[in-house]
């Protein structure tokens, strides 16, 4: 198929359907399978009550907004945890102003145990309750049906259960803070035996058990979502919407969903095994003859008595199973963001995406390689050097498809007419900061480097550049870009730009200097590193980082005000405020029940900006050329 011009869809609608019964009777194939390209036209206009409409909704747009509000709430909570962590690292054992109201018995001072809980739950919440739900839950739900031309997800009820499975996950995650010993404190990676031996850490009492329950429910939610997304993308595209005409956002979401389908169940299995280790005292991750402080450690029992359990397992086995999912999870957290950035850059630069197919292939390559690199998280675990070398080579190979993407983004911007609005600014920042995070990733993939910098702040800098400066900026870009479609109103541009500039400056203020203090050897996950005289001189740097972090957190007030104010009082916009090409802009803003109020036919890819075939600088996917409507005489390209 050609990316421009007309290549007619397989079943282009011959006429607009009437309002009567099915204008296109479904062609039933053998055994009840409708032939591809058939359209089922139905009418159902029933008013739903408040609960069915906004709480137990099966509408993908409402579920998307549920995921988004949940994700943004947890972004604030996870951010608060980060602020407490930063306060402690900058001014160890100084009381946090105002915290004594919540914790009168400690006077607002963070204990070492509470510090480990904070960074454990910060990581857990940001990954499982913020980034993944925002990217796949919120935008996956909102964009997939609209961008492929479907009236809803393939299985709307399953979609609803996907959100409701998050509720027990949230409950268990927060429950940890209210049980004896507090929340999980073994890091978001939950390495045994720290996580499985009750006496190892305060959070290893019951907090860790609830953490595992939360993780399992997140997995159930993601699995339901992923099945729905993949089925919708493959089975419900509008006529003419071939795979290679799909927006890159859809490609990113599709590949992320496939990663979830194939990687997540392994983590579910692993976390259930750890749960069994903790409750039934199986021995999957408990080695033989484990001694803690020269004695056999107590295993946890619900009755509180010391019980002996099975042993003979491998703590390292957990690390393999955990990273088998959690490394692909890194790509689940960045591939949709890459897709959003591609769409937003192209739309606001008024230029086609440079190299559409290489973009698709590079995303697939990143996902494929992402399955065989998990070992690079474990270089210091005593791995066979030959195996470490294989993981290192595979990891460095990911730089190739990543570089293809970066150069294609730059190629998209080259010579374009960039509209520097809030969405575009955030998307540009995504590209810029993904380059920084990506480059440090190549460098630390080399085993000799990694062994030196393992568990230092440079690792913290690296993954925050990818996941915060990368994915979160892409999420902001996506919110600014698709907000008009979600709520029918535009977000305030001035507030958006103010929000962007402060966020960009302070994000780099927080994470850039972590490279330096990391190289100086400062280790992460340490409540008071300055007890070691070697690191005492790094406290001033940490104070500056913390001030930037506070400023970054407070700065988000501009976003919160803008978001909620615009939701109700923003400027009303029409169907296609950005003059964009993809299908979601054909629907009303916000789209009603069933999304599209007219029949769709797709004639080209989504990036025909500045096409010589039309006088406008954009050419929607649904616009049919060749019938003499507003087509300049000189352009006569038919394909």
């Amino acid at each position, binding site marked *: 198929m050609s990316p421009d011009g007309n290549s007619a869809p397989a079943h282009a609608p011959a006429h607009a359907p009437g309002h009567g019964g099915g204008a296109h009777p479904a062609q039933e194939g053998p055994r009840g*399978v409708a032939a591809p390209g058939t359209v089922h036209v139905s009418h159902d206009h029933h008013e739903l009550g408040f609960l069915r409409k906004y709480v137990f909704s099966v509408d993908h747009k409402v579920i998307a907004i549920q995921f988004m509000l949940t994700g943004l709430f947890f972004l604030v909570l996870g951010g608060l945890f980060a602020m407490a962590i930063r306060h402690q690292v900058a001014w160890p054992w100084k009381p946090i102003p105002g915290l004594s109201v919540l914790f009168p018995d400690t006077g607002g001072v963070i204990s070492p145990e509470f510090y480990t809980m904070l960074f454990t739950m910060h990581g857990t919440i940001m990954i499982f309750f913020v980034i993944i739900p925002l990217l796949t839950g919120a935008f996956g739900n909102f964009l997939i049906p609209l961008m492929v031309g479907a009236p809803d997800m393939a299985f709307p009820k399953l979609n609803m259960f996907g959100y409701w499975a998050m509720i027990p996950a949230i409950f268990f995650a927060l429950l940890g803070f209210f049980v004896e010993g507090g929340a999980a404190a073994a890091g978001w990676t939950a390495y045994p035996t720290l996580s499985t031996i009750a006496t190892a850490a305060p959070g290893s009492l019951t907090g860790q058990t609830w953490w595992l329950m939360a993780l399992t429910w997140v997995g159930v939610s993601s699995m339901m979502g992923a099945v729905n997304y993949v089925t919708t993308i493959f089975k*419900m595209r509008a006529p003419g919407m071939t795979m290679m005409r799909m927006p890159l956002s859809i490609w990113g979401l599709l590949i992320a969903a496939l990663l979830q389908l194939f990687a997540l169940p392994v983590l579910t299995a692993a976390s259930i095994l750890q749960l069994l280790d903790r409750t039934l*005292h199986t021995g999957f991750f408990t080695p033989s003859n484990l001694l803690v402080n020269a004695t056999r450690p107590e295993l946890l029992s619900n009755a509180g008595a010391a019980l002996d359990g099975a042993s003979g397992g491998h703590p390292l086995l957990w690390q393999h199973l955990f990273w088998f999912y959690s490394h692909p999870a890194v790509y689940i957290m960045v591939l949709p963001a890459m897709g959003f950035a591609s769409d937003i850059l192209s739309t606001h630069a008024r230029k086609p995406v440079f190299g559409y197919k290489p973009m698709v292939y590079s995303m697939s390559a990143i996902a494929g390689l992402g399955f065989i690199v998990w070992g690079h998280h474990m270089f210091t675990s005593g791995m066979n050097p030959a195996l470490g070398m294989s993981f290192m080579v595979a990891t460095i190979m990911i730089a190739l498809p990543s570089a293809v993407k970066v150069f294609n983004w730059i190629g998209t911007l080259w010579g374009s007419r960039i509209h520097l609005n809030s969405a575009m600014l955030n998307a540009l920042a995504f590209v810029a900061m993904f380059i920084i995070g990506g480059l440090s990733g190549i460098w630390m993939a080399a085993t000799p480097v990694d062994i030196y910098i393992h568990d230092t702040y440079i690792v913290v800098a690296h993954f925050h550049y990818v996941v915060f400066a990368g994915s979160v900026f892409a999420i902001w870009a996506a919110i600014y870009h698709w907000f008009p479609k979600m709520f029918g109103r535009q977000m305030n541009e001035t507030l958006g730009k103010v929000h962007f500039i402060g966020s960009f400056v302070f994000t780099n203020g927080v994470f850039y200097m972590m490279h330096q203090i990391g190289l100086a050897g400062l280790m992460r996950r340490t409540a008071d590193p300055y007890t070691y005289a070697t690191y005492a001189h790094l406290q001033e740097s940490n104070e500056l980082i913390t001030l930037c972090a506070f400023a970054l957190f407070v700065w988000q007030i501009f976003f919160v005000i803008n978001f909620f104010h615009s939701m109700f009082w923003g400027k009303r916009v029409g169907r296609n*405020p950005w003059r964009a090409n993809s299908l979601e802009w054909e629907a009303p803003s916000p789209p009603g029940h069933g999304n599209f109020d007219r029949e769709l036919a797709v004639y080209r890819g989504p990036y025909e900006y500045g096409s010589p075939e039309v006088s406008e600088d954009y050419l929607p996917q649904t616009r049919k050329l060749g019938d003499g409507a507003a087509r300049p005489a000189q352009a006569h390209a038919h394909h």
Partner: protein
Amino acid sequence: MSQATLAPHAGAHGHHGHKADPFAYDPAVDAPAEHHAIYDYDSGPPVERGKFAIWLFLATEVMFFTGLIGTYIILRTGASAWPNPEERLAVDITAFNTFVLIISSWLMVRALQAGQKGDKAGILKWLGATILGGALFVGIQVYEYIELYKHGSWPNVDIFWSTFYAMTGFHGLHVVVGVIWLICAWFGAARGKYTAQNHMGLELAGLYWHFVDLVWVLLFTIVYLF
């Protein structure tokens, strides 16, 4: 982009005109059409959506059991000594149980064949037999667990029993879910839900049932026989 060059045009089949200010809300162009139809398109591979989705779901199940079986293989090959399963497990009873499950898979095929003919009585008969087979399997497994418990063989005793209970237990849970699914399908059939043209619900339950049986053949081989 100069606004002056934007000539308004009417696109093909109901395209709305374009406005000078894209941000302005123009009810004539932007308001949703009233009482419009809902367009639901079919695309892609010629399989029904539910069937497509169940294969994806089975792929996640394959990966779940890959995690469990992989754990078992790593722990067993990494152990200095591993007990002979024949000395600890009643292989003959479980071999009979495996036979029961394989037969139930065949019964499921017969139920689906009846469904393809729209033979309601046939569905009820064969599906009922499948359910009995599944229930018998669960019953024998529970009996096995009780006998083992009486001999003090429990997951916290050693790593052999840890892996044994995790793998057979999760498979057992899948059989229970499968039996419940089949019972739902049986009541659906009793209500006349499945016809010669549409028996997708029966087919999906069957796919899941065959998957559960297949996993058992694998588990029986590596846990009981080797």
